[in-house]
């Protein structure tokens, strides 16, 4: 005989009976439980759940299938990166920020490198700048391709993610030929990049570029016109421009709400002012728009890569720098436009070889705040669609 809660032998006498007043909640979570009304229940998703993109925990208050309230719980991937950076010297700190957003780790390197270079007044050689733009755009394509697959996966289609991984694998293998690693590249250095373009990278890039656009378009055809996909995402989780600006949303999520803000164009860094590209925007602000904006950005990235390859100058890829970096006391903020939004790093130097304080701004953290407001009143299945369209990566959220 296996135990059951209906078994009178295990019935635990309740501490309070019906005529006593309701117990005073001791914790915030308890208070939430007491706030449950008739017909509502909590569903706890995560930290291990197929569609929470890592180790996010989401507590959903549902009424039947309808989401009444939603509360993301963070911190399951808190690795103490900021503190570790403060105990490492400037070169090492780049290495710690590298795995923050593991889907697009070059951007997580680029932001602290930009901050440190401002702190030290380093002039990056032009060839290094071009190489940075080239690799970052490649990484952006890899990230957006994965996003497309995940979006479809969270809506129940299994094929797009596998096709997306083909493209992503080719890009990261190419980057591995250049940087030496597939996922955590650790390629950018203060004052340049680690190693010039090599033959293997260029030949792989050439083969890939010759058919990339056609292949990605072909992959997109699977779900872009799919009625089920479009019906599930159109008009879902509408984020208007005003709220988006108020919440500090950046990147494609902001551009999908009709605000054409792109750091590459509005606060230019590296050689972006010399390159020609569009900033795709959409006015709807729903999940579909967020998805389509990203797909348009892939095309723009391919365009940028094409220009970079034609205009790549010769020269060194590393500035002349002392072995031990000791910037003057001061503070600097460096930011880059990543596939998810603005990655920023605020570094304070106290004159030693280690940053005195390093603050990492990650767009995913901001976007995760939106899941609650955007999902309320929709169904459980829509939570996944909204969350996937915001595309948070938990490594960056929890740092």
């Amino acid at each position: 005989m296996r135990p059951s809660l209906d078994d009178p032998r295990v019935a635990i006498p309740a501490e309070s009976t019906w005529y006593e007043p309701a117990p005073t909640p001791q914790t915030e979570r308890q208070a939430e439980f007491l706030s449950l009304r008739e017909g509502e229940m909590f569903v706890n998703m995560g930290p291990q759940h197929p569609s929470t993109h890592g180790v996010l925990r989401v507590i959903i208050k549902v009424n039947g299938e309808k989401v009444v309230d939603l509360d993301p719980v963070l911190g399951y991937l808190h690795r103490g990166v900021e503190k570790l950076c403060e105990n490492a010297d400037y070169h090492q700190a780049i290495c710690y920020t590298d795995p923050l957003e593991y889907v697009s780790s070059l951007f997580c390197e680029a932001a602290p490198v930009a901050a440190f270079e401002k702190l030290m007044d380093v002039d990056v050689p032009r060839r290094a700048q071009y190489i940075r733009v080239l690799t970052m755009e490649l990484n952006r394509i890899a990230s957006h391709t994965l996003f497309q697959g995940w979006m479809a996966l969270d809506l129940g289609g299994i094929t797009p993610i596998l096709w997306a991984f083909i493209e992503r694998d080719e890009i990261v293998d190419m980057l591995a030929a250049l940087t030496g690693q597939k996922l955590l590249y650790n390629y950018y250095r203060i004052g340049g990049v680690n190693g010039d373009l090599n033959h293997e990278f260029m030949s792989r890039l050439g083969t890939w570029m010759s058919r990339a656009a056609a292949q990605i378009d072909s992959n997109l055809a699977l779900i872009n016109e799919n009625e089920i996909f479009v019906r599930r995402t159109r008009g879902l989780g509408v984020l208007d421009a005003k709220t988006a600006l108020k919440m500090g949303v950046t990147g494609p999520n902001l551009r999908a709400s009709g605000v054409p803000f792109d750091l590459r164009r509005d606060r230019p860094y590296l050689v972006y002012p010399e390159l020609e590209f569009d900033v795709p925007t959409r006015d709807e602000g729903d999940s579909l728009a967020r998805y389509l904006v990203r797909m348009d950005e892939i095309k723009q990235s391919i365009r940028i890569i094409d220009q970079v390859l034609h205009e790549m100058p010769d020269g060194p890829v590393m500035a002349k720098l002392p072995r031990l970096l000791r910037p003057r006391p001061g503070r600097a903020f460096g930011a880059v436009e990543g596939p998810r939004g603005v990655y920023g790093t605020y570094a304070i130097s106290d004159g030693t070889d280690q940053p005195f304080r390093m603050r990492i701004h990650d767009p995913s953290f901001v976007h995760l705040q939106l899941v609650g407001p955007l999902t309320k009143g929709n169904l459980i299945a829509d939570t996944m669609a909204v969350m996937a369209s915001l595309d948070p990566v938990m490594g960056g959220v929890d740092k």
Partner: protein
Amino acid sequence: MPRIPGAGLVSGMRLTLTRFFQPKRTVMYPEVKPDIAPRNRGRLELVTDEHGTLKCETCFQCAQACPIECIDMGGTDTKGRFAVHWGPAEQYAERREESAMRRSGRTVSDAAAATGATINIAKVDEILEAHDYDPHHMLAILEAIQGAYGYLPVDALKRVSRATGAWYAMVYGTATFYKHLAFEPGVTRSIAVCRCANCLVSGAGSVMGTLSYEFGTEFGRAIPWSNLRLESLPSHLPDAPSPLVVIDGEPQRDLSAKNAASWAAALAGRYAA
């Protein structure tokens, strides 16, 4: 979106069917080795030369260059004398600055940080030289330092750590483990309680508990507000009462297990005044 309902579904179905017949992208891994770039640095092994001997010369350069200190090398030197270590410290043992609070720029009453370079470090060097900088003789070194200074200055501990190669945390741990090693300067007098069998029977245990409670410290440590230490006496003095409590070798005859608290309060009052 096409006008005909279902056209998107049909085009997607057509696409998957075309892919069904296309050549597959799988690299048959165990049979076919993947095409890995020569620059790939994911290799996690020590390389051997054509004779099968290790190419590693133990030059420690990789451990020094490793940006995140994930390479850990350690051992003893060729004469087997010095512990050599380069790599990440254990989780909480070693930091470059002892106090994280001080690193953040605050003034804190951290005893280890507050004692500046006020001592003459030459004596420590002499002691270290006498012990051949051997970390295995840590206890002897620390006792010699305590004999020379009367206590263990933090700067001396740092010096010991740097010279012997032992981690600061280990030096500190050794120093705190042995009760006869003191960190506080100026502790000249001591209150000692005998722990022989006779005294224990007549209540030395409860006296020790009472005193430790009243003075707010534990046995083997200095009393915070005075130059007194609490100690235990190794042997009973001849012609002394039980339980035996001595102050600087002087037996206290007016003390028993019952009035220990009031006696301690009186002592505290005397020191406060």
